[in-house]
């Protein structure tokens, strides 16, 4: 039926127009915003960004957070996904509880962990009960960047491991059982089966999880603001402050472009490094 060939295009068209308007256009606008000044083209916004007091720390902490949080989440999620296979009783209940953080926002997660790390919070109360401290201690101030960093790591691992877990479990379901069973027949230990069969076949899911989580980690914002305000500067937070507090969209856009650049680099890196090895996958 020739007359029906246009149907799929008709169905797809609204979303394409929408995505062009909401992705392609702002992307171009952001690039223009970052390199255009009052008198034509300029690198002034990038120079102001780089010269800013918070800039170095923002780059340092953003990258450091991604480097610490993402591997932790992947290892933990992988462990949870494998563990799920060994549970028979109450499997659905554990699935439900473990995936609850999927629906919890970064802001809410920040506030939850604020209740633990704040001056009169649960951590200090716990340390006091153990007799380690007498008076409340400040953990989230400018003077305690290491502890503030740890608090953000805890909140992020708590909140976002569930996403990785779900992606990995979905990936595990795609692996045919026969492979593992065949390896078992040939006498492979569970440990060996995991390394030689499951992990290589899980590579595409791992790749998706790593790319997604790294991009999101580079955008980290509300968790940090909720826990420490600007005491731990991060790139997205600086974009926010430059736009909102300093009313300077040019520098804010420069930060946005920088985040995009780092995200793009990380994605390319993952695509290159984690290319599924054909001989193993086949």
């Amino acid at each position: 039926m020739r007359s029906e060939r246009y149907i799929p295009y008709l169905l797809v068209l609204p979303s394409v127009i929408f995505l062009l308007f909401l992705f392609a256009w702002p992307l171009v606008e952001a690039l223009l915003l970052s390199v255009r000044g009052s008198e034509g083209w300029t690198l002034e916004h990038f120079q102001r960004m780089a010269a800013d007091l918070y800039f170095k720390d923002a780059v340092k902490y953003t990258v450091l957070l991604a480097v610490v949080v993402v591997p932790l989440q992947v290892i933990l999620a992988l462990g949870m996904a494998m563990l799920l296979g060994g549970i028979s009783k109450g499997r659905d209940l554990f699935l439900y509880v473990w995936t609850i953080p999927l629906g919890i926002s970064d802001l809410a997660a920040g506030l939850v962990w604020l209740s633990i790390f704040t001056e009169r919070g649960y951590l200090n109360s716990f340390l006091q009960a153990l007799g380690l401290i007498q008076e409340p201690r400040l953990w989230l101030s400018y003077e305690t960047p290491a502890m503030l960093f740890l608090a953000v790591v805890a909140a992020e691992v708590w909140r976002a491991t569930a996403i990785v877990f779900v992606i990995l479990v979905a990936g595990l379901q795609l692996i045919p059982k026969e492979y593992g069973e065949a390896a078992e027949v040939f006498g492979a230990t569970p440990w060996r089966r995991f390394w030689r069969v499951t992990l290589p076949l899980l590579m595409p899911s791992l790749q998706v999880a790593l790319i997604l989580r790294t991009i999101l980690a580079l955008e980290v914002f509300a968790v940090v603001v909720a826990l420490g305000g600007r005491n731990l500067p991060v790139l997205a937070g600086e974009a926010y402050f430059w736009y909102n507090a300093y009313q300077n969209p040019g520098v804010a856009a420069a930060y946005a472009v920088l985040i995009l650049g780092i995200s793009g680099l990380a994605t390319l890196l993952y695509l290159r490094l984690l290319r599924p090895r054909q001989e193993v996958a086949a």
Partner: protein
Amino acid sequence: MNPRTIYLALAVLLALWVLVPIFLIATLAFSDRASVFAWPKGILPQRFSLETIAFFFGVAGVGKAIGNSVIVAGLTLLFAVLLGAPAGYALARYRFAGADAYRLLILMTRAFPLAILAVPLSVQFIRLGLYDTALGVALVHTALALPFAVLVTSSLFLGIPKELEEAAWTLGCTRIQAFLKVVLPLALPGLAATAIFAFVISWNEVFAATLLTLRERTLPAFLLTALNDSPLPFRFAGGFFLIVPALVFIFAIRRYLFTLWGIANR
């Protein structure tokens, strides 16, 4: 020790890791002011009280922010399903030139950081009159939810046999009738899950919402901008209130969680 017992113990430990922090903030949200500031704190609630929660809802602007959040999330849900489901249906049922390019476009949108959208859009929205409106925020949130809506609905429609539709055609239904009478009822629960997912994406989003609004703040945007000068009880009650939908949401769509993400692998 039996490995099953070890597995179970580990699983319980991980469940506690998720639940205990939620329990702690819930405890604070349902304590009186004195307990929130108490030192040192006990793990169990000292005195049950609605004082903190009532204080939170009594703060000027909170009610309006909740209303805005619901409106924005409702619009996002509507846009994401209306734009996403037809595209998902097209991907599932038709082979057409450009389908792969379209899939790639959808996946690429997920690789863009939010800052790259929100900053230029808020500048442009001022010009377009969309700045500080629920519609403006909902458009950006739809951009976040749409890729999911397309991928999830496409896997949903793939799961409904094409033969059912074809049978309806031979019985005299038009394409649209067949879709409405045969496919839609079967797809409805999955579509509802997609809609809930879009709703929660919007309910939780804070960066774009803060940049794109001034007076018409959503709840997360309102909370974020109020953080610096608000007392701890307000923050804890707000944090707890943000979490409540998450508990309901995960429970409602638990059957679809893995389809939701499994499709992302292909």
